[in-house]
């Protein structure tokens, strides 16, 4: 029994809240958390939090009838409510940190960017119609000088330059006068679908969804593929990680506990302490207990980014390591051509253990499994901390060469378990979080949780 501590659960993962509370031996805080009919979140905390050490558990996963952004707003509102309710300290416990992973630009399976390059971009000349104009061959240095030079002698330096590079000069000259870049009349077709707000989810794309999009499948592909940036401008995707960190701090979070951040750098986005717990001990334990002859197996990282994570396990357990390298270079790749996946290391006649931090659409691990089977692997396990299984990940995994997928319950897994059956094993992280909460509350070191006990 721990005193002076309040565990408050969001709506995203009630079962985890229950088991964490069970492990700590205290009941979860009574609260009303729902929505007004207008769609605004409604939150009332019914137990006193004055002077208490409050832990709010909310995972970055949409489900239970609400969406990810709803859950995140709920979290901020709960933090703020506790703060205004005179809580001594508010700790946000996010087993899966939302918006921790966003790709720079979405890309196709082939490695080509999902967005079409702007048609005028190919000229590779100047970027904008700017005033004063970008200097270049064929362009007067300034209006006044050009007039003078033109009067004085016809063969000034700009003319000579112009002759030397006729084609180049013509293009740039044609681009620089104003108006050219704005001739496109349809500058507004993207944000204004007739589909309303929920359009992104409910709009069925006119074309059947091709199965060749990775990382984050877009629901409304037609919108994306018709999108064009302004000529000369390279479109980019906003990264919300810092924003999410700042929003939580501004809501009043004094401390954040999370697990297996996709980028450990996210910790640096916060001005408050962030404890990044590791799922590694759990995964290692699973390997030791459930994989026969695990010493002869091979740990595989499905992409270079996760190599460090995988080698850490391989090193501490003294297992061999291999890596799959994804070629993602968009070098004149036609749409049909697959990105080449290259296996570095030997897996023939061995058990393979894929290690990654998150399975989202499941593309990476299912394709890695396919490659490993081709290379002669006998059995393939995939061990992942966060099992989001968005989109049609479940059916993709069911149809794949994977023999076993092991995830933690950092997000609710009951539904996934029902659909994946024996293929899915779920590890319980509640003890780790309960212990972390207990230690943070008592001001004990939690670094012991980072090591395998």
């Amino acid at each position, binding site marked *: 029994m721990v005193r002076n501590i309040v565990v408050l659960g969001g709506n995203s993962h009630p079962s985890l809240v229950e088991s964490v509370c069970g492990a700590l031996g205290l009941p979860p805080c009574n609260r009303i958390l729902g929505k007004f009919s207008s769609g605004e979140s409604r939150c009332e905390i019914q137990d006193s939090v004055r002077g208490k050490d409050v832990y709010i558990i909310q995972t970055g996963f949409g489900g239970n009838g609400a969406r990810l952004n709803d859950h995140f707003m709920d979290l901020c509102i709960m933090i703020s409510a506790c703060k*205004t309710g005179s809580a001594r300290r508010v700790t946000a416990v996010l087993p899966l940190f939302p918006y921790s992973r966003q790709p720079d630009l979405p890309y196709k399976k082939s490695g080509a960017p999902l967005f079409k390059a702007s048609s005028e971009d190919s000229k590779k000349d100047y970027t904008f119609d700017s005033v004063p104009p970008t200097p270049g061959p064929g362009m007067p240095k300034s209006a006044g000088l050009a007039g003078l030079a033109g009067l004085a002698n016809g063969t000034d330096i700009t003319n000579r330059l112009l002759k030397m590079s006729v084609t180049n000069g013509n293009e740039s000259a044609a681009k620089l006068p104003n108006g050219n870049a704005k001739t496109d009349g349809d500058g507004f077709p993207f944000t204004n679908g007739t589909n309303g707000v929920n359009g992104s989810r409910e709009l069925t794309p006119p074309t059947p969804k091709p199965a060749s999009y990775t990382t984050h499948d877009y629901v409304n592909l037609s919108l994306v593929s018709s999108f064009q940036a302004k000529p000369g401008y390279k479109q980019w995707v906003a990264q919300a990680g810092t924003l999410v960190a700042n929003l939580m701090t501004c809501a009043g979070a004094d401390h954040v506990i999370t697990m297996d951040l996709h980028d450990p750098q996210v910790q640096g986005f916060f001005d408050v302490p962030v404890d990044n717990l590791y799922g590694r001990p759990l995964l290692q334990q699973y390997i030791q207990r459930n994989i026969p002859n695990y010493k002869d197996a091979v740990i595989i990282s499905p992409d270079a980014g996760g190599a460090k994570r995988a080698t850490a396990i391989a090193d501490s357990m003294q297992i061999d390591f291999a890596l799959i390298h994804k070629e993602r270079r968009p070098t004149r790749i036609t749409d049909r051509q697959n990105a080449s996946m290259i296996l570095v290391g030997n897996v023939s006649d061995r058990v393979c253990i894929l290690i990654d931090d998150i399975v989202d659409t499941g593309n990476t691990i299912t394709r890695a499994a396919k490659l490993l089977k081709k290379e002669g692997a006998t059995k393939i396990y995939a061990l992942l901390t966060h099992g989001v299984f968005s989109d049609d990940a479940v059916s993709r995994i069911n149809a794949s060469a994977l023999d076993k997928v092991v995830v933690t319950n950092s997000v609710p897994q009951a539904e996934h378990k029902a659909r994946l059956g024996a293929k899915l094993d779920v590890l319980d992280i509640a003890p780790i979080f309960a212990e972390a909460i207990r230690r943070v509350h008592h001001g004990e070191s939690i670094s012991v949780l980072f090591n395998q006990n």
Partner: protein
Amino acid sequence: MSAEMANEIKLISGRSHPDLSEKIAKRLGIEVARTISLNYSNQETSFTVGESVRDEDVFVMQSTATGDVNEGLMELLIIISACRTASARRITAVIPNFPYARQDKKDKSRAPISARLVANMLQTAGANHIVTVDLHASQIQGFFSVPVDNLYAEPSFLRYIRENFTAEDCVIVSPDAGGAKRATSIADHLNTAFALIHKERPRPNVVGRMVLVGNVVDKIAILVDDMADTCGTLVKAAAVLKENGAKSVLALVTHGILSGNAIETLNGSVLEALVVTNTVPLGDKVERCPKLRVIDISPTIAEAIRRTHNGESVSYLFTHAPV
């Protein structure tokens, strides 16, 4: 094209109310910026910028839709934050219906003051200026440490009444004591009578007994309020007014949130018409409810944007509706 190139109005629209953004853009004679926002399959919102906002005067238009408030709010925050990252000179959030405006006080122990949270979030994301319409409580402006321009739909309403009725036939009615100030202001401008309905409210979204203060016999009773949510209050107030001898009853409301079964409630009510502005995306509600009329608020917002950009006074708009 030359001098003003350096700092132009960039109007960025969120997904919630593209229709209003387009009207504002048209009015300003510009195009809505090329951006795209969508949700990944894991439900995270993604925002892609397709043109430069460096050193521009950015206006982000987002009017959170009924039922999808958090989604719209997060999108707005992400857009603002993206513009700040992209070196915009100034970022103005144009939020015609301010989300969580009703959660503006700690009316119970440990109830969140979500309106203040939203204000803080907007500033954290990087908003330098806020433009909104008819805040539920104008004190919300005090939650911000950046300028907030609270525009009024009142001039548009006054024009609507003048164009459609003769002032002597009308009585302006406030459906609750809190809205009395708003209603008296309209009554004063029109030089008409004023009445008030006092109600007891046992729980949120539940309406209790109502008492009419004032005379509405043989008059056109015009209910004035800032938002119509489930419409329970309005419909009950309309019934009370009818019982007290009003010739007909209509309602002028700024924000038509119209959640839940508001449309069914309205259709079955004695209300002759509900006039709302298009601050909130109405979707198919106009088709579903023949009583619903819409006043276009985009001229006011567009003019506010123009004036803000040019550094002119906005206070003219508090009393005049641009044609």
